């Protein structure tokens, strides 16, 4: 078995027992990237030299007998909207094409301190706005299960990198589903933590009341290991939660005897693939067979949630993206006046979806419309939170779909923004409520595309989500299935 096919937990063990060196591990992933990425385009920037240097440094420290982090030497890929000092951070936008952050995001500082080599920066929808990674200003990323299909988005590059063994772990960000939906479409595990659980310092802002950094992994244990590293209080983020973090990675057995699970009934949500509904129902039965108490729960505001989200997120975005004016950083166009220079810079530097969201947000915040759109949407957000409070009085865990359909075709929704927005319908209300939510592989469609389950818990209950993900993993044979990449020589083995 090749090193790039190992889980992060196994690599950690092999590194600690000195079965392998970090340089060997890094080299294996770099070779895999060279082989696979030209076909799938998961990375915007690759950092092989930096990764090998970092691996070499860890090997030297280990040889000297220094106490080092369990993940030291285990490489990671990072979504390209997370600031990395002296390493280009583009947000997949022309406007930041040459932006070199002079500082590290807090999660990057943690990763570097632990000695995890960074393999590169992964592709995304421009400024994380999108559900297919087609809104990248550079190129779309392709789904490894079917290269004619999208990987989901916006963290599509991170999901593809992990699904194909180009990285054992990745960081993504989730505003309205941007970790969970691509994880679902690529057949990996993706965790959106509780809002405030992982520092947002250095995450390029899209919608600040919703943005959250999270993990992409092949297994629940791997996600837990990375969460233990990146979660926790950060004085540099004023919305960071002060609560202690648990040890996410030990004691991951799910106690099914005392677990109440609410199976989400999607009322009048359109476009649900019956195979997705079937997969979710089977997952509920599985929990019930193993002793959990399963009931039905309705979150009646799900489709209103979508409407509220597409006012709140663009409103915050229109404000956050006001900073791109061509003065302090980024692309700059010409103009006789400051206003002309700003307008042209932004008109030429932003892609169509970013412009649409800036326009919606500016409109919703403008005089005469603020009350009817933005304020109303914030009130609906309160109603949605109440929905969840009610649901969590009866249930410990909510179970639903992580995406209404398996991966759709490239180009299928690019001309119809509203249809694209609807692909986040399962993910958005969790984001609005600020609760932790996780996508885990649930099965496959008849055409062999992954179908993801979504699990949601009370604030700060990430560990329960990881336990539940682990339970589903244990029920699967094999625990994790990789896509066979038939366009590569041999295709590679596909089991863990």
């Amino acid at each position, binding site marked *: 078995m090749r090193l790039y096919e190992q889980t992060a937990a196994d690599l950690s063990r092999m590194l600690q027992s000195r079965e392998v060196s970090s340089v060997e591990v890094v080299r294996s992933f770099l070779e895999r990237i060279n082989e696979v990425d030209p076909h799938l385009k998961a990375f915007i920037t690759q950092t092989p030299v930096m990764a090998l240097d970092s691996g070499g440094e860890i090997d030297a420290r280990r040889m000297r007998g220094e106490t080092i982090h369990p993940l030291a030497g285990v490489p990671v890929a990072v979504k390209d909207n997370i600031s990395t000092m002296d390493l280009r951070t583009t947000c997949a936008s022309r406007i930041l094409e*040459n*932006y*070199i952050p*002079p500082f590290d995001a807090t999660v990057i500082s943690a990763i570097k301190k632990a000695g995890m080599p960074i393999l590169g920066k992964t592709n995304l929808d421009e400024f994380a706005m999108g559900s297919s990674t087609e809104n990248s200003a550079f190129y779309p990323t392709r789904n490894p299960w079917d290269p004619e299909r999208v990987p989901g988005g916006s963290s599509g590059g991170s999901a593809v990198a992990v699904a194909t063994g180009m990285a054992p772990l990745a960081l993504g960000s989730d505003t309205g589903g941007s970790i969970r939906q691509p994880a679902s479409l690529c057949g990996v595990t993706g965790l959106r933590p509780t*809002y*405030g659980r992982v520092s947002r310092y250095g995450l390029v802002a899209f919608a600040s*009341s919703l943005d959250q950094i999270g993990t992409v992994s092949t297994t629940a244990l791997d996600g837990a290991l990375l969460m233990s590293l990146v979660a926790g209080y950060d004085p540099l983020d*004023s*919305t960071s*939660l*002060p609560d202690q973090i648990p040890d996410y990675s030990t004691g991951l057995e799910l106690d099914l005897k005392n677990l109440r699970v609410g199976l989400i009934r999607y009322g009048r949500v359109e476009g649900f693939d019956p195979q997705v509904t079937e997969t979710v129902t089977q997952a509920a039965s599985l929990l019930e067979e193993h002793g959990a108490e399963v009931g039905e729960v309705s979150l009646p505001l799900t*489709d*209103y949630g*979508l*409407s*509220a989200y*597409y*006012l709140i997120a663009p409103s915050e975005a*229109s404000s956050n993206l*006001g900073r791109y*004016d*061509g*003065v*302090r*950083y*980024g*692309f700059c166009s010409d103009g006789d006046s*400051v206003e002309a*220079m*700003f*307008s042209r810079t*932004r*008109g*030429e530097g*932003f892609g169509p979806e970013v*412009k*649409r969201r*800036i*326009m*919606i947000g*500016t*409109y919703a915040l*403008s005089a005469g419309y603020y009350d*009817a*759109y933005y*304020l*109303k*949407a*914030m*009130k*609906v957000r*309160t*109603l949605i*939170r109440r929905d969840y409070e009610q649901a969590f009085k009866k249930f410990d865990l909510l179970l639903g779909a992580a995406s209404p359909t398996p991966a759709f075709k490239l180009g299928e929704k690019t001309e119809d*923004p*509203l249809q694209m*927005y609807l692909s986040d319908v399962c993910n958005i209300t969790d984001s*609005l*409520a*600020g609760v932790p939510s996780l996508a885990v592989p649930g099965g496959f469609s008849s055409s062999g595309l992954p179908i993801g389950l979504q699990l949601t818990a009370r604030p700060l209950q990430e560990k329960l989500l990881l336990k539940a993900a682990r339970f589903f993993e244990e029920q699967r044979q094999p625990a994790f299935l990789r896509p066979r990449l038939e366009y590569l020589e041999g295709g590679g083995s596909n089991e863990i």
Partner: protein
Amino acid sequence: MPVDFGKEVDYVARLARLSLEPGEKERMAGQLSEILETARRIQELDTTDVEPTSHVTELPAVLREDRIKLSLPLNRALQNSPRREKGFVKVPRITASEQAEE
């Protein structure tokens, strides 16, 4: 009720400091009308006496001690600025010139 965004596009684009090509404007007007029509569905909900949620964490405002810390050196802070000179960023003239005032 459809939302006609056609008349608003120029005004909103100006507020957002976003220059749009003519074709882009038309396309956007259509798409935004459709999106806002869906977004308006929240009007169906009764939100009488409901407080808005702007943020989900109920944390108090965080204050820190007023202490001087190391900050970025000037050249680092300006390293990404596309037009700079002698430690300043350059922008087109902001104040009106005498000629323009005539």
